[in-house]
């Protein structure tokens, strides 16, 4: 075996890549993990312990950063505290045929460092919807098949939450739930009484208690700093840097190389297999080939689709494994067109201490059970109640001592929530390559064209109005409906570009995330999703990645790959 040959190659080191690396190395495979960005090691996160006064510009983004990162910054996500996790858009261009917010983290850990940590299972309702409604392709996997893998990843990652017994949002193996605050408890009660709707504490990948296993000695419990997006030196939340990659490292079977841009799969026509990947060094431009028995693409839905679209051969003239013509298509995200907020009277003698890295969640209730609407699927809400901060002094004429007295008391309570709605898979929502336009490495640019369509538009009305209705039903004041100009990608849940299905004519992957037409290539990031629910998807990527890795090693041992 030469130095460029391994048992397995994992492309990408984020949410999915970390899991692939852990599972494959723990099962004894010599595994090369290729990350296109720079190295990040736990617990070295440059801004993690900075106090607010140590951040420049009051943590506001400068014009200089806006110029380098116009896409990243236009979404409002980056701040000086975390901007080093967001790519330089000028160095990493793509083409927006329709506005598409492509938020990217090119570094070891990928977006598992910046994610919002909300962790929900998809349920039977989600896995059955496409088949029942004749949308896209049926899921080739049932909830019962994936449930044990959800168990496994929840236990390892550490997911906090409350057991609720909801059909549309299955319970998991939870660490203790965060507290709802006083007003959220009030809202929960009123919502249940007035409208029969559930409000629960968010389920999140923060350790509200020690892990129930000993596999991650480098991780401690969540310290309620709510600075997660900077990276947590306590290991208080799950990221591949804090959790899966250290496990893979400890096996001695992992080789992790940063700054390696995988741009093509190498296909051997005679063997009918992929033999490896082509790589450019991001710093030197040096080209290298790496070889392995199996390849896991975990480069993100658009990243993996890019590599496959760019991997053409006489067997795959339209992109790797693209016999169906669905590669790069069916892009989904979560539609986020707004919500509502209101002010709450009373509760002035209570507040909260600590900073909860989590909010409340209102699980989907539309098109669940007897509820029937004029659109398919549904939406959930994420929100929180809080006491108003110093922003409330912006539009006031109080000055001097009067104003300074007001500084010492918290503002009135307010409550707000944002809807996340399911987007159906549409073939037309697609990404493709423009081979005439190149980036600085000479690689073709990705073109993205995805919009929300009729079903989503119909749902939007409910998404906004229901939120206001709930706040009004609870008796809160100054209820405002918020309308956001959502672009696909803005929820940072892009997915669906290599969907799984039983029929190779209509899907790219089989039920074990294997490329139908080339069984030793697995795609386990968001690419594989045939539909998207309204729940945050990362937990599902973890579960499917772990399951695919298990299948891959089994098939290797049987000599099938």
């Amino acid at each position, binding site marked *: 075996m030469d130095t460029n040959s391994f048992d397995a190659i994992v492309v990408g080191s984020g949410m999915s890549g970390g899991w692939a690396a852990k599972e494959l190395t723990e099962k004894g495979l010599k595994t090369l993990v290729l990350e296109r960005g720079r190295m990040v090691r736990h617990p070295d996160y440059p801004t993690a312990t900075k106090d607010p006064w140590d951040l420049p510009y009051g943590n506001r983004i400068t014009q200089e950063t806006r110029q380098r990162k116009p896409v990243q910054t236009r979404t409002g996500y980056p701040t000086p505290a975390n901007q080093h996790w967001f790519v330089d858009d000028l160095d990493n261009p793509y083409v927006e045929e329709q506005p598409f917010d492509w938020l990217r983290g090119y570094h070891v850990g990928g977006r598992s460092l910046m994610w919002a940590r909300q962790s929900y299972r998809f349920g039977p309702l989600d896995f059955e919807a496409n088949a029942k409604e004749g949308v896209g392709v049926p899921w080739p996997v049932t909830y019962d098949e994936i449930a044990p893998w959800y168990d496994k990843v929840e236990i390892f990652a550490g997911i906090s939450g409350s057991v609720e017994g909801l059909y549309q949002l299955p319970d998991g193996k939870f660490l203790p739930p965060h507290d709802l605050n006083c007003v959220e408890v009030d809202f929960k009660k009123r919502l249940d009484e007035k409208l029969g709707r559930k409000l629960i504490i968010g389920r999140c990948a923060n350790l509200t208690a020690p892990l129930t296993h000993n596999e991650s000695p480098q991780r401690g419990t969540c310290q309620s700093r709510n600075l997660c997006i900077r990276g947590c030196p306590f290991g208080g939340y799950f990221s591949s840097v804090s959790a899966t990659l250290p496990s893979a490292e400890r096996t001695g079977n992992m080789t992790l190389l940063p700054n390696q841009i995988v741009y093509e799969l190498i296909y051997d026509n005679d063997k009918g297999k992929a033999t490896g990947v082509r790589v450019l060094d991001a710093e030197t431009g040096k080209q290298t080939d790496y070889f392995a028995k199996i390849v896991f693409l975990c480069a993100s839905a658009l990243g993996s689709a890019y590599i496959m679209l760019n991997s053409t051969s006489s067997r795959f003239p339209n992109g790797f494994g693209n016999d169906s013509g669905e590669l790069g298509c069916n892009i989904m995200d979560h539609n986020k067109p707004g919500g509502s907020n209101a002010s709450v009277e009373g509760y002035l003698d209570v507040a909260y201490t600590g900073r909860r890295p989590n909010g409340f969640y209102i699980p989907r209730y539309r098109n669940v059970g007897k509820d029937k609407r004029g659109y398919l699927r549904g939406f959930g809400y994420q929100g929180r109640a809080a006491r108003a901060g110093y922003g409330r002094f912006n539009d006031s004429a109080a*000055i001097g*001592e009067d104003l300074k007295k007001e500084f010492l008391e918290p503002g009135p309570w307010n409550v707000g929530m944002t809807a996340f709605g399911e987007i159906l898979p549409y073939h037309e929502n697609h990404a493709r390559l423009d081979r005439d336009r190149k980036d600085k490495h000479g690689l073709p640019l990705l073109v993205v064209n995805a919009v929300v369509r009729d079903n989503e538009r119909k749902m939007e009305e409910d998404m906004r109005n229901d939120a206001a209705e709930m706040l009004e039903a609870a008796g809160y004041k100054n209820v405002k409906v918020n309308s956001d100009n959502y672009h696909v990608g803005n929820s940072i849940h892009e997915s669906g570009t290599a969907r799984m299905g039983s029929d190779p004519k209509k899907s790219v992957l089989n039920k074990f995330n294997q490329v139908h037409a080339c069984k030793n290539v697995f795609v386990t990031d968001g690419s594989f999703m045939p539909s998207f629910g309204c729940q945050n998807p990362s937990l599902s990527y973890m579960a499917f990645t772990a399951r695919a890795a298990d299948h891959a090693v089994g098939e290797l041992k049987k000599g099938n790959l």
Partner: protein
Amino acid sequence: MSDEMMQRRVLLRRVAWMLGGAVSAPAALAILQGCSAKDAAVSAAVFKPKFLTAPSQMDIVAEIADIIIPKTDTSGAKDAGVPAFIDLVLADVYPKDAQQRFTAGLQEFAAMASTSGSPFLEREPAQRAAFVKQSLEKALEGERNPKPFILMARELTLLGFFTSKVGITENMEYVAVPTAYHGCVPLSQMKKHVYWE
């Protein structure tokens, strides 16, 4: 401002420039001990604005900030370094159009003070405060989109103050590592009623 203060300021600026402009505050302070300049003018003088460079722009903005949040038994805007903060945010964070609105609004503010009595910086403290208060009230009654100058200045003052160490720690309970979250705590059990979040 008194003539004596003006002269001291000019002197201090010259010292700063003489040393190349990039002189550190402690170094300049050491040099200036002989001038017995121990009031706020020292920091204002050594500090070289990046955006508010035209005559008296920086001084007017600094006074407005300190009128909105004055020093009392706790720190005020100047103690918190708010004037320098505002200048830097205007220079590096604000887009061109907002910068221009701020500058034009500042000029208008100064002109209005001059025509309605006396130049802003020459007024007695109470008259200055009254003029700021009156400007705020007027702005709040009128069109607020785009934000009028005085409300921009106010927002910047609050942002600078509440991202400064003294602004946060003197007015809020700041705990870097809280270790736990408690969702419903009586204010009577909190050291300070506002918990930094």
